[in-house]
């Protein structure tokens, strides 16, 4: 997918474009303090990334768009709720921008950031 056929020809949307939308949506999600490169799940806190393609991976399988996001969450928030919100927000923004259905958004909580300990 990421491909649409019109009478004039085809439209292709690269996975990078989708990743950029997902990246920005994630950063506006409450509770997320950063993204983590997916292949560096160790020592992530040091390698929080601002590169859209890092931390977000997008794959097309036939008609399905699958998005994987690796995030760092603020310590002291309810992780489950934050991850759920991220999944909803990313799906919402990608579908709104592309007009295409997203098959799955997988949120991987790669770590927590502790900015205050109570």
């Amino acid at each position: 997918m990421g491909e649409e056929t019109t009478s004039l020809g085809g439209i292709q949307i690269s996975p990078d474009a989708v990743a950029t939308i997902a990246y920005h949506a994630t950063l506006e999600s409450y509770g997320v303090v950063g993204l983590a490169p997916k292949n560096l799940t160790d020592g992530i806190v040091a390698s929080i990334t601002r590169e859209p393609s890092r931390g977000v991976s997008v794959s097309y399988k036939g008609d399905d768009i699958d998005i994987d996001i690796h995030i760092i969450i603020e310590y002291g928030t309810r992780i489950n709720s934050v991850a759920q919100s991220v999944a909803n927000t990313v799906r919402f923004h990608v579908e709104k921008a592309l007009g295409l259905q997203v098959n799955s958004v997988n949120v991987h909580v790669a770590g927590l950031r502790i900015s205050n300990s109570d």
Partner: protein
Amino acid sequence: MAVDPARIDKFRRLPIDGQSLKRLIDAGLTWLRTNKDMVNALNVFPVPDGDTGTNMTLTLQAAWNEIKDSGTSHLGEMAALVSKGALMGARGNSGVITSQILRGFSRGCHDKATLDVATIAKAFGEARDTAYKGVVRPVEGTILTVIKEVAIATEAALGSVKDPIEMLEVAVRAADEAVKKTPDLLPVLKQAGVVDSGGKGLFFILEGMLRHVYGESLETPTTMVHSLSAMDLQGALDEVEEGQDYEIVVDFVPTNELNLASFYARLEEMGTSIQVGEGEGMYRMHIHVPLEKRYEPIDYIMEIGTVTKVAIENLLAQMDDIQKSKQLQFTPVEPGSIAVVVVSPGQGLSRIFASLGVAAIVAGGQSMNPSTQDILNSFENLPTDKVIILPNNKNIVLAANQAKEVTVKHVAVVPTRTVPQGLAAMLSLAPEGELQAVADKMAKAMAHVKTGEITIATRTVEIDGVSVKDGQVIALLDGKLVVSAESVEQGVMELLEKANAGEHELITFFYGEEMPHGEANRIADVVREKYKSHEIEVQEGGQPHYQFIISIE
């Protein structure tokens, strides 16, 4: 609203300890729950979870569950429990932010046994900082902005307020103002015409606490009463449905304090679109009711207060007016002047005729000829006795002449047989002068225009030496069949040949309801290509059956 001074005084004198905080949280939760639906209704895009009010209520409910059995009187300990409960129960984006606000608040007062003015300001400051830390890119115009404004306002008020209750008043006021400003910060809210839902939820929590102090009800949603200026009675008119025949607006001063819940309950038995506004003790009630119940709201309100003003409007008639005014603007008729009535086969043509100054339009044309009565009705009520009728179709000329016979008004029929003739006649209208002289001048003008019509043959036939098969495109010139063709484009080109279009200057295409706008323009471009020195215009005609009506002048 009834504020009990003795009660407030009592609150002022008592320190706010753990148990007081518990009651305040309960009040905030109750008030939020009461207004939950209203908060949900505000939800628009920025946070795509559709139930902010529900999520915040559940989050605060979890906090309440954590503290409801706690007997601690230590403020900091109680706040810590609130924070813990909210964290565990946080639901949705707005719930998580709420839990962070409570967590920050709790941190700001963790070592205090009671809540003093300085601690409140510090705790709100911590609440803001904690809330903002939880997100990389804070979106302004949301609940975050509201807690920020509250923190700023309480800190600024430090020197001037005397007690925690006054500080709470400052916080509620700041939250209220911040919520009202959210549409200026977040364009999507402005577009939707709402304030931020999460921010409003936070406002309700704080306001609920203050209402508890004041001893005001926490069970009846305030949102049912608008301020008088905020009542949108014009907008209510757009939603008129069956059974809403009359709009009743009653201004009144209730004898006793108005019990909104029972007031609404009674009104709901009578009708719909209920709105109640309040300003300085005066209430305004708005309702849509069916015909037979049109006096009931008035009778009812007279029982509970003094009615100062009543307005009753017939909605059906009003809707009619709105419909008409949306459609066409006719030239108003001066008494004694000449009014022109035309028959028009399509919306687009009607608009053109209206812009040329006709006084009334009768819908009709090929295969939908209006009756004599239809034509009569169009002008019988006009405030003049001088009328000119343009039938614009050869089959309607007769009905127009009959209308002339049966009316007492002075009528002249200009026998336009086509729409272009009618338009040409209309363009030459100079309504000063004798009726017959004006009509004669119009009849002369119509002779200068040639009319082409493009349509599809409905049967196989040979007329005037042109043989036509069913389904072919045919072209008529001044009502006479001149061309049969395989396409509309071909029909148009051959028709223009037959009409000696080369000797004319202006060709106007009125495309019909079956002809797409783009295709009409395309064909016009082909014509432009061939008739380079001509002026070619394309207008929406909206007529049925005819792909094009073409005026050649």
